[in-house]
């Protein structure tokens, strides 16, 4: 809903901003200033994606881009298809120093997909259009082009280009009452038998006939929900002398009636046509044969589709005009959006709210739509960073306060520091660590379940859910469980080891009679180690005792071995210093047992593991040359594999601490040495892949 105060505040802020900008211009002595197009994005946009031209072309000059494989290909292809000769992407007229945006707006009846592209040279941009004389409609400095089939509109002036394409939601028009308001019928094919008996069809028609004359409906045609919800200030004087709220309403109405005059006769005409076919249908369908009925249905269906398309076009035109005029509350006033931004990002994505996303697509899921399964999940954002060292994607999800508090409690544990000495950074191929507070988890888990599924299952089951939760709490002694499994664990692969494996082969005698022989070969397997903290070992000990009695487990000194024939590797385990260890290397286990495990975790690895609730690292370099080439099935494959691995830097992932109500995680991939930055490296990868 509209905020009555915001336009005033917005205007005030805008003045302040302009003042500041003027100052900045004076100081930096920049002569031109084109405002960032974010101002054009309406506050109720659903998804906003940004490519930050400035940051991109900092990493790679336009000249370098033009000369790159991708650049050359792009220029060559566009030149070819438009029969022109482009030598630089600057020839497209786009302002590469500014941000480009994609956004969409959703409501129950239409989805708009929109692009906002900053222009530097509108003439150059226009040169991309063939036969422009016939296609472009000029009004002042605003030029409009309607794409064939009227499904999209492009509008531009000297500073920006706006592209919009709208798609009507069929679910909206499946609701006959709603669709009738727009003179559209939901046509369904029915055989003559049920058609004759279907009184519902007639009923729908009557609603639709009676509503034609109501002026309210006409206004609805003019103002689809998305636009209506927005602040319309077109007719309002910018000085803001009149009360905004009043002016808004007034202007909307004036406009609606003004336009209604233009469009109304057309609509009425269409409706009459529909009524005629309807009456014909009622009288004669029973006697008509199936094929004729089907043809008629097809015809009618096409008519209705055309109507929907016209309606979409009317809505789209209006939306484009508004966005272009830009006199409404912009997304800049959306705190969730602005707080998701980062100056250094190359590209950004923001989705307003998972709950809203779910609810907006939910009607298409049928009855489950009403259940807010995404309840408690707010906006989502992702940012891409590239620099001289790595690629990084940072993602964040806003939670409802209750949810965030629950997660904070669950995340309130750090990895057992003792784990760190078992990470051999020199050799480690990878590791994964996580830590949660088991007790908090078990306590919070039922609440989270209730929140998510409670609404899903409906009010009628509330009591049962409550009962289940209580039962869960009674049966489980959270405290006791958390003593057995504290909630932190580390999985680490400290390198590869080769071991001798026997296999059966054949030898042949002088008569080529075969003899079975046992041969041995070296096989390389990763040495893994898995550990978790446990302070109460009674249950474990009982389990071990049971395992030994049933010969599932054997023991030597204090190292246990799992006797499982199917297992391709031997698995050992032991309990030491409040840690339960699992591993496949007896040597490693023995050295842990007698305190001779010699490893030196690097600072980076230590930080990654100790400071985050979840972390993952894969160091491909430590795999290079460790696997004998026979195991790849040949020198060549092995060489390729090693080359690829050698080029890979560390890949790692981590969860960040919850800030406010925001949970976030980062994934990073380091680039190999010898590359200036991640973007250039990416381009070289694309080039190599295309070769």
């Amino acid at each position, binding site marked *: 809903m509209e905020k009555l105060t915001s336009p005033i505040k917005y205007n005030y802020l805008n003045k302040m901003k302009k003042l500041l900008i003027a100052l900045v211009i004076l100081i930096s002595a920049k002569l031109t200033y084109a405002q960032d197009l974010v101002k054009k994005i309406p506050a109720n946009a659903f998804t906003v994606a940004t490519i930050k031209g400035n940051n991109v072309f900092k990493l790679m000059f336009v000249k370098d881009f033009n000369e790159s494989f991708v650049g050359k290909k792009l220029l060559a292809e566009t030149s070819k298809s438009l029969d022109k000769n482009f030598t630089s992407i600057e020839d497209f007229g786009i302002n590469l120093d500014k941000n480009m945006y994609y956004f969409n707006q959703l409501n129950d009846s239409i989805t708009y997909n929109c692009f906002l592209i900053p222009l530097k040279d509108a003439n150059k941009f226009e040169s991309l259009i063939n036969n422009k004389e016939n296609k472009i409609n000029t009004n002042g400095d605003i030029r409009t082009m309607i794409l064939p089939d009227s499904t999209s509109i492009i509008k531009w002036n000297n500073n920006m280009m706006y592209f919009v394409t709208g798609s009507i939601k069929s679910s909206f028009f499946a609701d006959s009452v709603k669709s009738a308001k727009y003179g559209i019928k939901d046509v369904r094919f029915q055989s003559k038998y049920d058609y004759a008996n279907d009184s519902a069809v007639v009923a729908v028609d009557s609603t639709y006939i009676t509503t034609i004359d109501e002026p309210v409906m006409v206004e609805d045609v003019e103002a689809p929900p998305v636009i209506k919800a927005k602040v319309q200030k077109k007719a309002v004087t910018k000085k803001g002398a009149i009360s905004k709220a009043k002016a808004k309403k007034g202007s909307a109405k004036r406009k609606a009636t003004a336009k209604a005059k233009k469009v109304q006769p057309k609509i009425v005409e269409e409706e009459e046509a529909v009524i005629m076919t309807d009456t014909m249908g009622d009288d004669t369908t029973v006697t008509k044969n199936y094929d004729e009925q089907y043809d008629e249905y097809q015809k009618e269906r096409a008519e209705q589709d055309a109507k929907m398309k016209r309606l979409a076009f009317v809505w789209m035109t209006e939306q484009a005009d508004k966005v272009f005029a830009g006199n409404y509350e912009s997304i800049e006033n959306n705190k969730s959006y602005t707080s998701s931004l980062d100056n250094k990002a190359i590209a950004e994505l923001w989705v307003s709210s998972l709950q809203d996303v779910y609810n907006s697509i939910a009607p298409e899921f049928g009855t489950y739509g009403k259940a807010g399964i995404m309840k408690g999940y707010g906006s989502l954002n992702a940012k891409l960073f590239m620099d001289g060292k790595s690629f990084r994607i940072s993602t964040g999800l806003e939670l409802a306060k209750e949810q965030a508090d629950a997660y904070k409690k669950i995340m309130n544990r750090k990895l057992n520091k003792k784990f760190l000495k078992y990470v051999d950074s020199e050799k480690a191929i*990878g590791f994964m660590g996580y830590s949660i507070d088991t007790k908090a988890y078990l306590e919070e888990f039922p609440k989270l379940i209730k929140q998510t599924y409670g609404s899903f299952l409906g009010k009628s089951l509330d009591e049962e859910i409550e009962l289940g939760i209580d039962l869960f709490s009674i049966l489980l002694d959270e405290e006791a469980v958390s003593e057995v499994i504290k909630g932190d664990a580390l999985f680490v692969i400290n390198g590869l080891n080769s071991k001798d494996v026997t296999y*059966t082969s054949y030898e042949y005698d002088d*008569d*080529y009679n*075969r003899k079975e022989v046992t041969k041995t070969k070296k096989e390389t397997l990763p040495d893994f180690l898995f550990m978790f903290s446990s302070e109460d070992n009674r249950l474990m000990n009982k389990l071990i005792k049971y395992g030994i009695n049933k010969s599932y487990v054997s023991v030597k000194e204090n190292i246990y071995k799992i006797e499982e024939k199917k297992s*391709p590797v031997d698995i050992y385990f032991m309990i030491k210093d409040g840690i339960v260890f699992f591993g496949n290397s007896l040597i490693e286990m023995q050295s842990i047992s007698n305190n001779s495990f010699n490893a030196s975790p690097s600072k980076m690895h230590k930080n990654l593991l100790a400071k985050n609730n979840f972390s993952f690292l894969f160091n491909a370099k430590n795999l290079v040359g460790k696997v004998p080439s026979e*195991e*790849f099935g040949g020198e060549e494959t092995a060489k390729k594999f090693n080359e690829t691995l050698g080029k890979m830097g560390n890949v790692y992932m981590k969860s960040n601490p919850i800030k406010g109500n925001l949970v976030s995680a980062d994934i990073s991939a380091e680039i190999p040495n010898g590359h200036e930055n991640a973007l250039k490296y990416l381009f070289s990868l694309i080039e190599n892949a295309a070769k």
Partner: protein
Amino acid sequence: MNLKQFYKLLLFLVIVPILSSCFEVVEEISMRNDGTGDVLLTINLSQSKTKIASVMLLDSVQGYKVPSKQKIQQELAEAVAYLKKAEGITNVKSTADFNNYIATISFTFKDVSNINNITKNILARQKIKATNTSSYSYNKAAKTFSRKYQSVSTAKTEFNKLKNQDKAVFNGANYTSIYRFETPIASASNPLSNLSKTKKAVMLKSRITDLINGKINVSNQIQLSK
């Protein structure tokens, strides 16, 4: 995390990406002078047993469903049942060793031509298109044994459609055929074939990828001394 999940993690980290396995297929035919003889078919995957054991723990690998031990045994039993009904075939036996991953099928034939089409039909029952057409004949009077082999071009195209990582599975795979006779061999037409010291047996070894790609032809015309 239970043990099975452990393995899965392990497998995905190291074993699966380099799933090239060594295995051998051995086809042995022992001909008697009267035209009857024995066949022993062996598929030996023991060189890759760690990998196979790992793969058997998975439901599917690289998009292919991994058959269970029961499924493999059942299919072997079906093949045996089929052979038992085939004309001129007797004494059908099969073995399956799931510790070393070796399976065999053996049987006795009345005439070597009895085995023509058998492999093809068995494969067809499993909905696998045969990769070659192969026929055997033995002429008692002329004392000639011949194997006519023609690789099917579609096999090559189908094989090339596979992803590289799937092709790699066949990289270390070998095919060996051995034909034994009661009479010494005078000549064998295939230059790739080797004669045993006693001159009573012929062996031909080749890589399975070469067979699929049609690089090697295992046709052979064997003339026994009269």
